[in-house]
């Protein structure tokens, strides 16, 4: 009997509370997809270190999932509370028919279990589909190849989703019991005849508060643009606080301010249903200014989070460009005069490194010249660029390598050698990414003066390939000098590049990275600075961080977006059903359906667009601040990342908007 009532209620709810189901299903789907990352290992072709990284990523996602569970739990509880409120009258009728509160509770429990089960199952099924796409994304981000496609289902993620959402649903049930036990029958029966309390607004006050909020926001913008992302600075905190309070005051005063302005313009105010729409929205924003504020800040956070994520990814991607030409590199640096070992070959012998025939090595020496980069480019560097150089410790003496060694490095890469006469040098650099000085220099100057000898620059644009494999620093600058170079050269490092070749690259890579591990733990020679890398280590260091950031950004971003859009949708829908009597009145006095639909659309648009618009303005400022940090690498990034973010916003936020609009229309249409 009770389950029959419950089942019928759920059936009906599917139509009425479509948004609630969508949100639940969406939540489960996202939760499952991201928690299934561990299971994706099986399908990816990865070395040992990448596997280790995947487990780190998994731990990170698991940690974030606890946070996400709290947000989603809050959202579900909020949505559920809406539904219970909506049904006060129905429950009241059950009670007048003689049903005890205990039995009503039982109906609600069965309903929650049913709704929970359905959304859990659909959500997990969707999640399994989405996670297939996610694993392709993982593979792309980590630059690993997919050998063979496997359909993956993560049992642990299924269990985890079921557990987390199970707990959430149990909490929702307890919450429902408490709400029900507090209700009085008379209030439940009269729930729909609520007395609308209309706050009379003081026009002057709202105008003053509105301009105060604008002033605060502008102040916060100016301050943050000046201070930048200095999280420790007090001014940074002040500007954040000002931003939050400004946003709060903005939503607090906005609708009253706005309606006062529009009322002055009688032509707009007295047009079609504008009076009604404005009053409706005014009421709504007035009572919900707090949640509006939270939603606006959440969307702002999402946009900036996603933008930061793209910026990170962009800068890391560039970092690796031209830096991974060799399977491995090892370099020994000469820092002290009396260094025990000054040659890499000697060092390798001491460390008992076994060279294999099927691996190719190429040894080289890196020297420092007598001139610095500042000397070279001084005419073309701006003050800021000089400062950047100093901050990045690249204003010291210039590095150089002899052409014969450079040619053997080229050979290792499979490129043809270069001939250099006695008076020629080559510029190898990616500095033009950091500033314009180098490009201008290359255009204007044909010669370089080193130790009072003039050298012609052979290339017109710098060669943008590094001579080693490294992930440690983005920028490199080398001069390739002739072998007979007569100027002063001080040995800076000796090392070799290695290519693993066909035999068993995976085995070689493991041996080499194990060797690198060994020497870093060696105590006896710890005073000697030896740095080595393999392509996989570099990839991991660079793509690994990107992957973590992208995953966290996308995960939290989607959760934030879904939460804010769902809250807006629920508020809007509950407002529509609270206002059903008003729509009925409108119909009775002869308002056409077309006008009513237009009024609903306008309300939904205003309600969804207001927090979004302010959030976008916030985000533009946030993006400028973040862009300052990544300024060197971001020229083309803003366009593509904004496009992706807009797309995400359009799909999730727009989807909720559309669903709300359609549901609202249906609620009004079916009210006759």
């Amino acid at each position, binding site marked *: 009997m009770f389950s029959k009532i419950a089942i019928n209620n759920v059936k009906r709810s599917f139509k009425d509370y479509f948004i609630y189901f969508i949100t639940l299903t969406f939540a489960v789907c996202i939760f499952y997809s991201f928690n299934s990352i561990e299971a994706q290992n099986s399908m990816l072709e990865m070395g040992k270190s990448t596997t280790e990284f995947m487990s780190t990523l998994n731990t990170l996602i698991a940690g974030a999932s606890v946070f996400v569970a709290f947000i989603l739990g809050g959202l579900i509880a909020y949505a559920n509370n809406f539904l219970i409120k909506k049904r006060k009258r129905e429950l009241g009728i059950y009670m007048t028919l003689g049903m005890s509160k205990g039995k009503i509770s039982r109906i609600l429990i069965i309903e929650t279990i049913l709704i929970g089960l359905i959304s859990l199952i659909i959500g997990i099924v969707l999640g399994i589909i989405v996670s297939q796409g996610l694993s392709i994304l993982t593979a792309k981000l980590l630059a690993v190849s997919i050998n063979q496609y496997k359909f993956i289902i993560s049992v642990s993620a299924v269990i985890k989703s079921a557990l987390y959402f199970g707990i959430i649903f149990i909490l929702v049930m307890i919450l429902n019991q408490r709400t029900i036990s507090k209700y009085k029958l008379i209030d439940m029966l009269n729930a729909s005849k609520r007395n*609308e309390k209309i706050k009379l607004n003081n026009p002057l006050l709202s105008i003053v508060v509105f301009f105060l909020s604008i002033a605060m926001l502008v102040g916060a913008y100016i301050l943050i643009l000046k201070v930048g992302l200095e999280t420790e600075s007090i001014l940074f905190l002040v500007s954040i606080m000002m931003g939050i309070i400004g946003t709060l005051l903005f939503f607090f005063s906005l609708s009253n301010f706005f309606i006062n302005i529009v009322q002055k313009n009688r032509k707009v105010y007295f047009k079609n249903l504008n*009076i009604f729409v404005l009053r*409706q929205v005014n009421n709504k924003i007035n009572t919900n200014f707090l949640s509006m504020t939270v939603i606006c800040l959440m969307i702002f956070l999402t946009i900036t989070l996603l933008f930061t994520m793209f910026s990170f990814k962009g800068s890391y991607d560039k970092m690796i460009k031209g830096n991974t030409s060799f399977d491995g590199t090892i370099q020994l640096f000469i820092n002290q005069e009396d260094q025990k070992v000054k040659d890499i070959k000697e060092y390798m012998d001491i460390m008992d490194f076994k060279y294999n025939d099927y691996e190719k090595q190429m040894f080289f020496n890196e020297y420092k010249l007598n001139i610095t980069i500042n000397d070279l480019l001084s005419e073309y560097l701006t003050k800021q660029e000089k400062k950047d150089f100093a901050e990045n410790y690249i204003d010291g003496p210039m590095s150089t390598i002899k052409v014969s060694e450079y040619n053997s490095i080229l050979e290792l890469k499979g490129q043809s050698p270069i001939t250099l006469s006695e008076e020629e040098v080559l510029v190898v650099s990616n500095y033009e990414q950091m500033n314009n000085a180098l490009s201008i220099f290359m255009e204007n100057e044909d010669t370089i003066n080193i130790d009072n000898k003039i050298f012609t620059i052979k290339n017109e644009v710098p060669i943008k390939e590094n001579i080693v494999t490294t992930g440690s620093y983005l920028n490199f600058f080398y001069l390739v000098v002739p072998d007979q170079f007569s100027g002063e050269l001080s040995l800076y490092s000796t090392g070799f590049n290695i290519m693993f070749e066909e035999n068993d690259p995976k085995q070689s890579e493991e041996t080499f990275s194990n060797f690198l591990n060994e020497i870093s733990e060696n105590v006896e020679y710890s005073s000697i600075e030896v740095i080595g890398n393999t392509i996989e280590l570099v990839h991991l260091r660079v793509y690994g961080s990107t992957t973590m950031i992208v995953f966290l950004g996308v995960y939290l971003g989607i959760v934030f977006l879904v939460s804010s859009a769902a809250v807006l949708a629920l508020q809007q829908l509950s407002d529509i059903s609270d206002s059903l009597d008003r729509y009925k*009145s409108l119909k*009775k*006095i*002869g308002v056409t359906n077309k006008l009513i639909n237009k009024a609903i659309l306008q309300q939904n648009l205003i309600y969804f667009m207001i927090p979004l618009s302010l959030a976008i303005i916030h985000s533009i400022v946030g993006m400028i601040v973040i862009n300052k940090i990544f300024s060197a690498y971001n020229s083309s990034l803003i366009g593509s990342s904004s496009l992706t973010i807009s797309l995400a916003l359009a799909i999730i936020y727009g989807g909720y908007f559309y669903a709300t609009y359609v549901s609202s229309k249906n609620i009004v249409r079916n009210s006759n």
Partner: protein
Amino acid sequence: MNNILSVEKIEKYYGNKGNITKAIDNISFKVDKGEFVGIMGPSGSGKTTLLNCISTIDTVTTGHIVINGQDITTLKAKNIEEFRRDELGFIFQDFNLLDTLTAYENIALALTIQKRKVIEIDKFIKKIAEKLEITEVLKKYPFQMSGGQKQRVASARALVTEPSLILADEPTGALDSKSSRLLLDSFEKLNKEFQSTILMVTHDAFTASYAHRILFIKDGRIFNELIRGRDTRKEFFNKIIEVVTLLGGDIGDVF
């Protein structure tokens, strides 16, 4: 006199083949311009159905209803909405004012949906407010007004568009006797001054006694018709009571 409303042999059936209820069973009558007609009848007599059919909210099964020269039973859905907006004015028992809007805005809404000009709107509202003596409550919200004031605002909203026909459904149903009298007095005044045509459904004999003519309905048919003629309202009221007694039922509502 020209004819505003003419109802021709309408019938309204509910239910399906085996089980048909005739809510309206062959009713015909005419209302001329400037007439104030009352419709009375006990609960379930079909008077609300009749009003719904005339007000285009419901459709008839057979027969024709012609309002101001237009046969509304043959109008298309879209035209019906426009017709209702432009030709009819409604006054309801529960006022149906929008609680979020001031009295002024409530009245204005009836004009804005007809896409009237702003200057016109203000002029019309001031004029009708004066007639109905609600000028001082124009800036108030419904929750700040008394029941009588609310119903007069609702009436102003119905009248401000100068519709061909005003349909009032139990307009005094939610009012105390003093407010009822005030409202009906203004109805009488408007009827005289503006030649408004009013069709009012009620089961209250006192309210009905303000009309010029009363149609009594029972079981979906016109049972009787009373014309006030030169009677005073008191005399007319007594005649109404007699018919109501004859009709049976709902006697308690007389007092």
